[in-house]
């Protein structure tokens, strides 16, 4: 049973398509990186998977059940702006969580809150630091005992220590309960060690979908003379060229031709290559 | 800490036992700090360590409770920024209804040392259309415009508070690239605060690490990490140690 499947999903806001013809299927128990440029449709996709936004076209299903405008019981969602009742204390907020859920583990919430350095349970949420607010929001999300955890920019606004602490909480959840996690982030450095699957979207369409290592293995970075690109085999993703040198990111590349050096890209250069290609597409679309 | 033997007037920031107290307590305590010229400085620390306070004191928006701080030898007056200092706040405050050209004109009207040609050049380089409204720009483009506005006054010290938050990786790289190129070309001292240590690596050559209102570590990265530790590791290591010290 796949945690999340999208079939030709599209979402239009007035005249603009935020997500278009998006199809994918996520494997269970993985940590999925949701990547893409600003405005590529990542948040919309997550909000649709959380049942907050209804797709204009197509269908999403969670653990085999099609979504019908409300959240699936096995899904938890961390929204980007961390919506919490700011006037409540942490303790009261947890009680609200218990009141609003059929399945709720107060123990789990306590456990997660205990992982972080000293959150006062009687402090009002509005007095907490950004890092603590995120961690409280994650604790609330985990209290639902989800099997699919959707995180929209879980690490934004966090200082380096809180970043690590938060990642540890999420990874512990994966280790303990085999939860499938989908997280979007702009900071590739945060994702490198924690993700084993990636989903790269651009202008609402899926560009890359697969196991990180497999995806990396399918791509090559070739560096060679700028004059002679005709001998290179494979599907060109993007290229940067200086006066003498071309650096090409290729998918399903053939062997490096004479005079070219090839290597497997790392996650950074792969994502950057795709983002660069997307920016060029957009720029040329604007021009023409 | 060793203070380079240079006249104070040449130092972008020179703080002597500076403290700042708010109603809820000390945000910065007895801090002595030198920011040497021509550096790209990483200002790092956990939330609440005093980064924003230090920036506020440098811009003159805040007055120190104790001690003194000078910017190129002058004490910030609080009546507007020092002419040689530019500051870019995290929210990148720009008038959304202005066009990019309006924004630059606004910069020209409010800054005596404005270099219109240079600002236009920066916008052009970023491929942002001059007649576009600021409100319609993408995050990366808006940051580039804000940067052009900050650099257009030809500062010698540029303070950037989390300039790259909420930019995608590509925009991050291009913005940072443009920033460093300009800083190097014109000898601008840049102070960059960020939570993402990885993006400061290879960019910053000087580190100021704050913790709990005090300077934990300050100096050139090459000197601080003699054993080949990267800036990120170095900072994280010290932050972790300091946090454990507090907890114990």
């Amino acid at each position, binding site marked *: 049973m796949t945690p999340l499947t999208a079939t030709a999903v599209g979402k239009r806001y007035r005249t603009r398509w935020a997500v278009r013809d998006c199809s994918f299927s996520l494997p269970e128990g993985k940590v999925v990186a949701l990547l893409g440029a600003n405005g590529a449709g990542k948040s919309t996709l997550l909000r649709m998977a959380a049942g907050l936004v209804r797709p204009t076209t197509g269908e999403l299903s969670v653990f085999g059940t099609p979504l019908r405008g409300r959240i699936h019981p096995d899904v938890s969602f961390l929204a980007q702006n961390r919506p919490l009742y700011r006037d409540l204390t942490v303790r009261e907020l947890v009680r609200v969580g218990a009141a609003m859920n059929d399945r709720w583990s107060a123990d789990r919430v306590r456990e997660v809150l205990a992982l972080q350095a000293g959150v006062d349970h009687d402090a009002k949420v509005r007095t907490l630091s950004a890092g603590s607010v995120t961690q409280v929001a994650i604790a609330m999300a985990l209290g639902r005992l989800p099997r699919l955890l959707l995180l929209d920019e879980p690490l934004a606004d966090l200082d380096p220590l809180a970043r690590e602490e938060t990642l540890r909480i999420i990874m512990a959840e994966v280790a303990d309960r085999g939860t499938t996690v989908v997280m979007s982030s702009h900071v590739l450095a945060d994702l490198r*060690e924690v993700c084993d699957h990636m989903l790269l979207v651009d202008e609402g369409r899926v560009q890359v979908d697969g196991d990180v290592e497999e995806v990396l293995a399918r791509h090559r970075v070739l560096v060679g003379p700028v004059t002679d690109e005709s001998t290179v085999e494979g599907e060109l993703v993007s290229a940067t060229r200086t006066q003498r040198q071309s650096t090409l990111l290729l998918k399903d590349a053939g062997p490096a031709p004479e005079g070219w050096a090839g290597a497997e890209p790392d996650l950074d250069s792969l994502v950057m290559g795709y983002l660069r290609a997307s920016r060029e597409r957009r720029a040329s679309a604007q021009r023409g | 800490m060793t203070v380079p033997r240079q006249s104070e007037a040449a130092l972008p920031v020179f703080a002597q036992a500076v403290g700042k107290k708010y109603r809820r307590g000390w945000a910065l305590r007895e801090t002595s700090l030198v920011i040497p010229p021509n550096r790209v400085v990483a200002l790092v620390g956990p939330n609440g360590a005093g980064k924003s306070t230090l920036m506020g004191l440098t811009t003159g928006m805040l007055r120190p409770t104790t001690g003194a701080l000078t910017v190129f030898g002058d004490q910030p007056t609080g009546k507007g920024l020092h002419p040689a200092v530019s500051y870019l706040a995290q929210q990148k405050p720009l008038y959304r209804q202005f066009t990019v050209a309006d924004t630059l004109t606004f910069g020209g009207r409010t800054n005596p040392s404005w270099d219109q040609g240079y600002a236009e050049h920066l916008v052009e380089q970023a491929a942002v259309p001059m007649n576009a409204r600021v409100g319609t720009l993408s995050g990366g483009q808006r940051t580039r415009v804000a940067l052009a506005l900050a650099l257009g006054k030809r500062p010698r010290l540029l303070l950037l508070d989390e300039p790259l938050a909420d930019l995608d990786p590509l925009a991050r790289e291009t913005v940072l690239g443009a920033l460093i190129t300009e800083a190097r070309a014109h000898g601008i001292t840049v102070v960059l605060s960020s939570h993402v240590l990885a993006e400061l690596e290879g960019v910053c050559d000087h580190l100021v690490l704050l913790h709990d209102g005090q300077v934990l570590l300050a100096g050139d990265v090459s000197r601080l990490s003699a054993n*080949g530790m990267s800036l*990120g590791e170095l900072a994280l290591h010290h932050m972790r140690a300091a946090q454990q010290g507090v907890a114990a």
Partner: protein
Amino acid sequence: MLTGVIEFRIDRHSGVSTYMQIVHQVRQAMRLGLLTSGDRLPSAREVVDATAVNPNTVLKAYRELEREGLVEGRRGLGTFVTKSLATEATAGDDAPLRRELGRWMGSAREGGLVVEDVDALYSAVRDEHYPAEERS
């Protein structure tokens, strides 16, 4: 908490994948005699607590070690080392070769060599004695 015998150190800047780092570190610990037959490797959860890496990666590394026949997963109990790679020459702080290398390092340091010098010397000599094609 009683953790396993070893603790992994994940270097986020090395460019080597997390999974390979874990595999290497287990192999190295086995060679040095820090891990011997019957020792339990830290559980994925324990590694997560220490390093905040993806537990799937840890499990993948253990599977790789299992494939190599070095460890064995026992359902519900954990992953256990089944072999010893340590020899008298490598295990323990007072193994003769180690002591010899220690003396060498001491004189290198006295001679004013820095880490890079030592690394360069070491790998040059190593490559002399162990040509690349012989190494697996």
